[in-house]
């Protein structure tokens, strides 16, 4: 059979788009398959925080810093296309214990290469004049950035297309073509396609795609809500969030957790996030979650009390039990590669992931060791999750 493409990418979210762009640029022929519209999955139900500040030292932080270099390095010329801003993050603590935690985290992060400035209580207003009085401390992270996720996805796909890649929407992958053990292509509702490599970039649905190959990749949904306010004159200048957010991104708790992340967008609206719940793919809008997000935001910005909320949206973060993504070749099904499970950081991590995977796909040693993200690391047994 003739090869339809060197690489078939399943999923046109931020991660699939980044893989497509970097693989195309590496000289591979790429075909992207998306069952819905471009950026129709979680990449259009999230926020645009590209953070280093919320990560403890470890492989995810390494990937975040690597991605930061990609965003601000070779992708810098496209920054305007996706509303990229080096906004900086401001993490605040309300209590003195919170403040101690913040300082201690900063020490560990500095050691791992993150830039952090300690901001004493009386200087917080210099950064964010509308923040509530009486906060105990803050930390400023100049490397935290922002981008518009749907524009990131759409432009990376456009760039890939213009460099020769194909993008088919409305095409669902329903099976994988095998030659013995090897995965040699995909079956779709619109016909078969052969490929040298099949990349599973199906986000929160990556587990289902992996199952088509008979392998287990435990990506699960973690629901989150975000509130959007009416457009306001400039009120929030950084990405502002409460220190507890870091703890909550690392937790596996099932119940409702909310932690405040506030950012303004280029259009003047303020995004107020967000919640974390493990409720499967339940799309019921939860008023308790929305109420708690609003209440916590008001403790930081009491002056927003009379601001109108125009809408809310929800998304399902793709997460793995150890809160690390799955990136790389799957030795259990040769020919199948994964790039999924980035949880609440998949926009920020997309470009690093895409670049590293493209290197691996073209047989070059990736700039960053991919072992911590190995798809087979969970084994084939259903693991019991251990709450962090």
């Amino acid at each position, binding site marked *: 059979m003739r090869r339809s493409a060197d690489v078939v990418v399943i999923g046109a979210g931020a991660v699939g788009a980044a893989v497509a762009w970097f693989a195309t640029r590496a000289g591979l022929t790429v075909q992207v398959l998306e069952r819905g*519209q*471009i*950026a*129709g999955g979680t990449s*259009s139900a999230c926020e645009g925080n590209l953070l280093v500040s919320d990560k403890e030292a470890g492989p995810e932080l390494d990937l975040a810093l690597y991605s930061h270099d990609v965003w601000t390095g070779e992708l810098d010329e496209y920054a305007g296309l996706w509303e990229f801003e080096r906004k900086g993050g401001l993490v605040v603590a309300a209590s003195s214990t919170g403040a101690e935690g913040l300082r201690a985290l900063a020490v560990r992060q500095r050691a791992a290469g993150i830039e952090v400035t300690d901001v004493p209580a009386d200087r917080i207003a210099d950064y964010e004049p509308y923040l509530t009085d009486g906060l105990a401390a803050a930390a400023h992270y100049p490397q935290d950035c922002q981008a518009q996720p*749907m*524009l990131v996805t*759409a*432009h990376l*796909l*456009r760039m890939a*297309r213009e460099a020769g890649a194909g*993008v088919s*929407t*409305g095409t669902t992958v329903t099976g994988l073509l095998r030659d013995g053990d090897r995965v040699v292509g995909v079956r779709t509702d619109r016909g078969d396609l052969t490929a040298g490599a099949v990349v599973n970039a199906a986000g929160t649905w990556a587990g289902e795609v992996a199952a088509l190959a008979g392998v287990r990749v435990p990506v699960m949904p973690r629901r989150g809500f975000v*509130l959007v*306010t*009416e*457009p306001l004159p400039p009120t929030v200048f950084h990405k502002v969030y409460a220190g507890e957010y870091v703890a909550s991104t690392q937790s596996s708790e099932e119940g409702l957790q909310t932690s405040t992340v506030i950012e303004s967008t280029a*259009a*003047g*609206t303020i995004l*107020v996030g967000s919640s974390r719940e493990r409720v499967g793919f339940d799309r019921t*809008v939860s*008023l308790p979650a*929305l*109420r708690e997000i*609003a*209440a916590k*935001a*008001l403790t930081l910005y009491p002056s*927003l*009390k*009379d*601001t*109108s*909320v*125009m*809408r*809310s*949206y929800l998304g399902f973060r793709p997460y793995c039990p150890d809160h690390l993504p799955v990136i790389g070749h799957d030795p259990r099904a040769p020919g199948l590669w994964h790039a999924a499970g980035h949880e609440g950081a998949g926009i920020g991590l997309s470009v690093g992931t895409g670049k590293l995977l493209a290197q691996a796909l073209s047989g070059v040693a990736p700039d960053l060791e991919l072992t911590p993200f190995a798809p087979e690391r969970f084994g084939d047994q259903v693991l019991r999750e251990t709450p962090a």
Partner: protein
Amino acid sequence: MTEPRPTDPARPDPGAPAALSQLDGPPAGRRHSALPAHRSGEAREVDDRWLRAERSGGVYDVAVVGAGPAGLSAAVTAAEQGLRVALVDAGAQPGGQFWRHPDEGAAWPDEGRGQHGWRRFTRLRDRLGRLIGGGRVEAFAERQVWFVEERAAVWHLHLTTTHAAVETPAPRLVRATSLVLCPGGYDRQLPVPGWDLPGVMTAGGVQALLKAHRSVAGRRAVVAGTGPFLLPVAEGLAAAGAEVLAVCEANSVTGWGRSPLGAVSVPGKGLEALEYAGALLRHRVPFRQRTALTRVHGEGSVTGATLSRLDRTGRVRPDVPPQRVEVDLVAFGWGFTPSLELVSAVGATTRVDVDESLVAWVDPNQRTDVPRVYAAGEVTGVGGAVLAAGEGELAGLTLALDHGVPVAGSRIEALQRGVRRHRRFAAAMHRAHPVPQRWAEWLTDETMLCRCEEVTVGAVAEVRDVLGAGDARTAKMLARPGMGRCQGRVCGFATAKLTACGRSLETTDLAPLAKRPFTAPVSLGELATTGEGED
């Protein structure tokens, strides 16, 4: 960012005076009973003139959202069958869009002037007044439902006041076993170059000003678009003293001949059209078929308009020179967009109607496919006030039935026959008055599409053609039409048409746009404290 203009609440009226009696409920003759509650009591911070809420809380049998023809009929009917009803409406007085009328607090001896089926309304209002007086209905005026949820088999409606800067009075929560959704809709808009100039209004907006404030929006006007609603608006303007230079109907009314079944099903409608035609003749208003207002001129406000002849496909005919007229008012009517957010929020199934509007699916008894949720009026398909009232009454009876009250089957069947007949008529009307296929060709890249976010037609074409946005939701994500204050209520239809590139709209085009978990805006402060002390 411009100051967003408020969404125009008023809509057109296929409503037929002659046909109103057909679906009328109980006979007249009870009109001289006690004054309704809305006449007593003095204005408070939030207007409660037709409100006598006992603030008793508890779980109502039924909560009706909307007090237009549909909701009013549903509430009155259900309450007269013995159910305990809560009636919620954003307006200060009942009537909805169709029976919008001057402030009942002031003396308007001629409050029914310019109205159709006014007797039917006053009878409904009287009945409502008695039911409120008797404690069977509690009415919550000037309250918007901003969130709806089901908890433990009870519907919870979260209310906010429609007055900015006024704290919402208790109760902020209404609970009920069943729900009737009658939120109506609003004017459908189609952008053309210059449509965002002051002096361009929706036909329904012009009508609302006439009906509620007796004020005329301009002196020299053109009424343009498609559908029978253009006629009463032109007639209303002319009767109020404005010079109406033309009524421009984009389609040809000989189209009616093509669906004889629909047209003969409601003879009263034909009479009504004749009546308007007669009135237009008296006022010397020319009625131009296959003509569209393709461009509005002016700087700062409307000073002129270009009227163009169209071919069958809606393309501007190159062989007929366009006409330039001087006007200070343009009234556009392109049909209606039903308010689907509540329907969407309860998770009811939707479908696309003949006029390409997303509407609620209902069974022949007005039940949606969500248990204990009913829908009536514009949200089940645009078809005028008579149909809306008939559906409301049918929903009210069905509710009673479903709550174990015996109801004569013959009464239900008679209503169903009336509803079916009006539906057929509405379908014929929609088929004769489609949005011109090639409307998009009248536009330039600079034509404003979304006024809230200032997104042009060119910007949407670019994300469609260059970035591959294949539907309205994706275009919204990439270019922001519909992301502003009105949340796509105004530009959603046009955006869907532009991204669909000529194919007919499907549920998948429209349903994502109708998804607005907050069915009305709410402040962060109110959201943060919702439910406090109420459950």
